[in-house]
């Protein structure tokens, strides 16, 4: 033991089945499940872990000492994120816009800036069916989620970690991929699914992360995703059919692997991941 392998499940397009794939896969692979979609983590709805541990995640926010501040506004001009503003006889701090870069303290000639801690969210750990489940939860109204993602993924346990990423190709996804050994791109055979898959492929290729594709909601075997993947020589790891039964199970908070037929899909996916992504 002692080996840590992080498999990031991402999608480009939202709502293609990242959580469906990662929750079921984590149970089949007996790996840890990590929900890094901190703005709306929903994997625990399906895994229902018993929470054992909750930790706060804090960031540094500037605090201006008005007695020392000489209103030179160097900090205000310096801040790239416009988190500081001049107001009558004071400087207003928009803490939700602050990226905690520390620059305002450095440029202040009067030593008027210190930092105070602010809680932006929590990390919850629990156990479900013998697997470790971890998730980050960003507080409602907070805009900066990257520090929470870094705290969550920077301290992962040795084992295989299936990491359920945020959708899109934003900072949240890039920062999640910084911890990836390999990636699974989940998509659907629609124009939007293809468009956003291309963006996700560009991202993982740029970061040189080995990856494979899972196509969800397949109606016809020969679809636009398959065509694209064949042209680009991208490995399709699994296909999940478009079935009402899956939608019914998912919307009632059930796991697909409780059904023997669907369990096979994830056993096969697990094999394919080991063959194509983990043995390279």
């Amino acid at each position: 033991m002692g080996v840590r392998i992080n498999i990031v499940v991402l999608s480009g397009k939202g709502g293609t089945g990242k959580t469906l794939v990662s929750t079921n896969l984590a149970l089949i692979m007996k790996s840890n499940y990590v929900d890094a979609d901190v703005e709306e983590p929903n994997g625990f709805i399906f895994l229902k872990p018993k929470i054992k541990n909750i930790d706060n995640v804090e960031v540094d926010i500037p605090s201006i000492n008005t007695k020392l501040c000489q209103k030179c506004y160097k900090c205000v001009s310096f801040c790239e994120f416009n988190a500081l503003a001049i107001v009558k006889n004071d400087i207003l701090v928009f803490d939700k816009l602050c990226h905690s870069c520390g620059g305002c303290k450095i440029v202040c000639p009067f030593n008027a800036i210190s930092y105070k801690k602010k809680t932006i969210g929590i990390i919850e750990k629990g156990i479900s069916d013998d697997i470790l489940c971890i998730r980050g939860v960003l507080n409602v109204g907070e805009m900066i989620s990257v520090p929470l993602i870094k705290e969550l993924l920077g301290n992962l346990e040795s084992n295989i970690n299936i990491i359920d990423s945020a959708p899109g190709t934003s900072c949240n996804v890039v920062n999640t991929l910084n911890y990836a050994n390999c990636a699974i791109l989940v998509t659907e055979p629609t124009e939007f699914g293809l468009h956003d898959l291309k963006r996700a492929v560009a991202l993982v290729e740029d970061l040189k992360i080995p990856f494979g594709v899972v196509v969800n909601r397949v109606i016809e075997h020969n679809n636009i995703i398959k065509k694209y993947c064949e042209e680009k020589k991208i490995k399709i790891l699994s296909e999940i059919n478009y079935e009402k039964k899956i939608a019914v199970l998912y919307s009632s908070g059930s796991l697909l692997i409780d059904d023997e037929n669907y369990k096979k899909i994830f056993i096969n996916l697990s094999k394919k991941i080991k063959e194509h992504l983990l043995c390279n």
Partner: protein
Amino acid sequence: MKIAISSQGKEKDSLMDSRFGRCQYFCIYNTEDDSFRVIANTAINSNSSAGIEAANLVLKENIDIVITGNIGPNANEVLKRSNKKVFVSEMKKISEIINEYKTIN
């Protein structure tokens, strides 16, 4: 009184810009000496929170009043905390807005 009006152009005949943070220009009109000048809104290229940067910009001009179409909560907070008044107008020519302001006050 110095008034900053968000504007699409540099002339008195230009239309007001309905956006505050990402307007093209600010027309600065002084009611005391009838002087009129225009500054470019450097906040327009800001990656985020252009409204706060634009508010910082007009505050440096020592204005008393802002007239615009829409203003976000952050920029509004900055101006309110600096005891500046914010008026909302329909999209009209800058000269019309100035005249309207004069007739009201």
